[in-house]
């Protein structure tokens, strides 16, 4: 295989009319990489204060058929989840991420909600996950994989409920990357970063948009105004530090 590698790289250098890059140019390219400098960022999201960022996030998410419920505190989440599954005529059985952020929620207030923690299986109908960041620019959720946040939760069940803390809302994708780097250092990325913008859809038959092609038919966002993730985020950072 290394012969194939040399054929391709040699072919590229040949076509570019040069040998390997000189050390100076290589150093410049490395500096470009290390800088993580941003290209042009649309003003739409960056020029906003906090409250208007939240409004933009909600408006953009709703435009792509996500539903959004705003609640004041984590203690109100069980009621909202119970209300939502009842309103949508869904079973009161959830599979939820193992993320300790979900532990701060008083689920015992709604004893009829049955919650299993783990990855999603074929028969799971409703999942509940935290998110890493929420991108106001396009109403996009940014979720990252990890031992406490299996990726199957985001795609297998018919209905995906995502908890967003107000403090997680940022302007752009680049802000999401910066938050990730701030937590993990410049090392490896998580195995999967999922940017999710509305529920699954297809327009492959006569360009008619239908929701729920293969992924979730419904994406429900529960936006919590209260800032309660700080403690548990620190805890999960310790975990991730140990992993590295």
């Amino acid at each position, binding site marked *: *295989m290394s012969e*194939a*590698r040399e*054929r*391709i*790289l040699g*072919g*590229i250098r040949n*076509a*570019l009319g040069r040998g390997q*890059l000189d050390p100076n*140019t290589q150093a410049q*390219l490395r500096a*470009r*990489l290390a800088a*993580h400098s*941003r*290209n*042009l960022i*649309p003003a*739409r999201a960056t020029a906003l204060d906090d409250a208007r960022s939240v409004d933009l996030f909600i408006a953009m998410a709703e*435009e792509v058929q996500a539903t959004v419920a705003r609640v004041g505190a984590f203690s109100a989440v069980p009621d909202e989840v119970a209300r939502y599954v009842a309103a949508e005529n869904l079973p009161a059985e959830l599979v939820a991420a193992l993320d300790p952020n979900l532990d701060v929620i008083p689920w015992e207030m709604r004893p009829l909600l049955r919650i299993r923690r*783990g990855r999603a299986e*074929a028969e799971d109908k409703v999942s509940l996950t935290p998110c890493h960041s929420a991108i106001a620019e*396009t109403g*996009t959720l940014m979720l990252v*994989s*990890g*031992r406490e946040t*299996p*990726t*199957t939760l985001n*795609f297998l069940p018919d209905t995906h409920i995502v908890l967003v803390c107000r403090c997680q809302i940022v302007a*752009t*994708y*680049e802000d999401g*990357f910066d938050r990730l780097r701030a937590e993990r250092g410049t090392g*490896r*990325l*998580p*195995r*999967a*970063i*999922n*940017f*999710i*913008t509305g*529920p*699954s*859809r*297809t*327009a*492959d*038959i*006569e*360009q*008619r948009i239908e929701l729920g*092609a*293969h992924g979730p038919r419904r994406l429900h966002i529960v936006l919590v105004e209260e800032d309660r993730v700080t403690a548990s985020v620190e805890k999960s950072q310790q975990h991730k530090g140990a*992993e590295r």
Partner: protein
Amino acid sequence: MLATSRNFEANARAGLADDNLQRALGLARTGFPLRRRLATERLPEFEELREEGRAIKDHTLAHLDFYLELYESNVVASGGKVHWAPTPQEACAAVRQICRSVGAKTVTKGKSMVAEEVGLNEFLEANGITPIETDLGEYIIQLRHEPPSHIIAPAIHLVKEQVAETFRAEHHALDPARSLSEPRQMCDEARAMLRPRFLAADVGITGANFLVAETGSSIIVTNEGNGDLTQTLPRVHIVMTSIEKVVPTLEDAATLLRLLARSATGQEFSSYTTISTGPRRPGDLDGPEQYHVILLDNGRSALLGTEFRDMLRCIRCAACLNHCPVYAAVGGHAYGWVYPGPMGAVLTPSLIGIEEAGHLPNASTFCGRCESVCPVKIPLPKMMRHWRDREFAKRLNPPVYRSALSLWAWTARRPALYHAVAELAARTLGWAGRYRGRFRSLPLANGWTAVRDMPAPEGRSFHSLWAERRK
């Protein structure tokens, strides 16, 4: 895939006469351009972003060897493996070797144009491995044994009645009396049919929209979520991609992502954009145990040194197809290979040779819409002209065409003679058509007059009128 680009003229004629195709294309030619326009109008920075997208790609291509080596080292550091494939045969062989090493029987596939380019499905079938396309459009055409007709909407050539007919013929186990009149019902049926396939597959193969050098990641952009199920559920994930997909940083990818969905479907952002880095990590409850990347060259590196280098900026958004009057009239199958429309008219001769694909760069009115909507500003008409030059230089056109072109060129290089001939022709035709104002038939022009009248000139050539006005 066996190319039929040589038969473009016959293919195009068949397309024009196909009522279903014309109905299906009618929906596409209004929908896509309208949605793109609305999306770009909402983003005042769109034109500047195009310039940045072009610059990012140019920068990467100028240092492609560096970024590919960096990319590979980061894939390896995250536990994955890169398989370099100079040719389609080597790409297919790498996939076979991986599939055999895990005893794979079925493979689920997300949409990948590179997989089409190397003929992966036929290859897997010939080797006793069943490929299952999971993108709805790809699934439909796989059942129909057809190639894709569009790079992001592979079944765009079909109307819903044809899809229903295919599902009835192929989904034997279902109630024959079920209703299949609406796309909703067909989506649900495909979802139900494919779900167990996702869960049972041994290997998942996706393409990549971008590769990120600094992190060793692959990025896929989908709306259905099929790509994510394909790459999350099986034990092995294979990314089937090509060398020009690499970009330096996540920030560079973000800029190109802002261009991609808006140019392609007119969405602000596609439903799912996924950045994958290596196999599952210790303690993870899901994700593939193995992560492989097949990096195909297939003639791309050689293009870097030619006048077709700009083509390697292409991010496969299909805006050029969606805005092309020729594509909108004849559909994608007429082009006879994997990549149709203006980008195909440039790329196909590069990949399979101008001898086979000479018709494609000629199938253009040079209206320039493709270039004006390209998110990375590829000068598509200019490159089609380069192909026409090469075709002429290689003496591939028919002798009559060559003689006529040579005669015209000889005349056009002699302005005095050219003006005299043009003036004479304009006067003669103007006089001959003075009563009806048009011709039903004309010698040497029956290619035109067979299907429509030729308007008669006013009687003077433009040059003589111009000369008169300037006095």
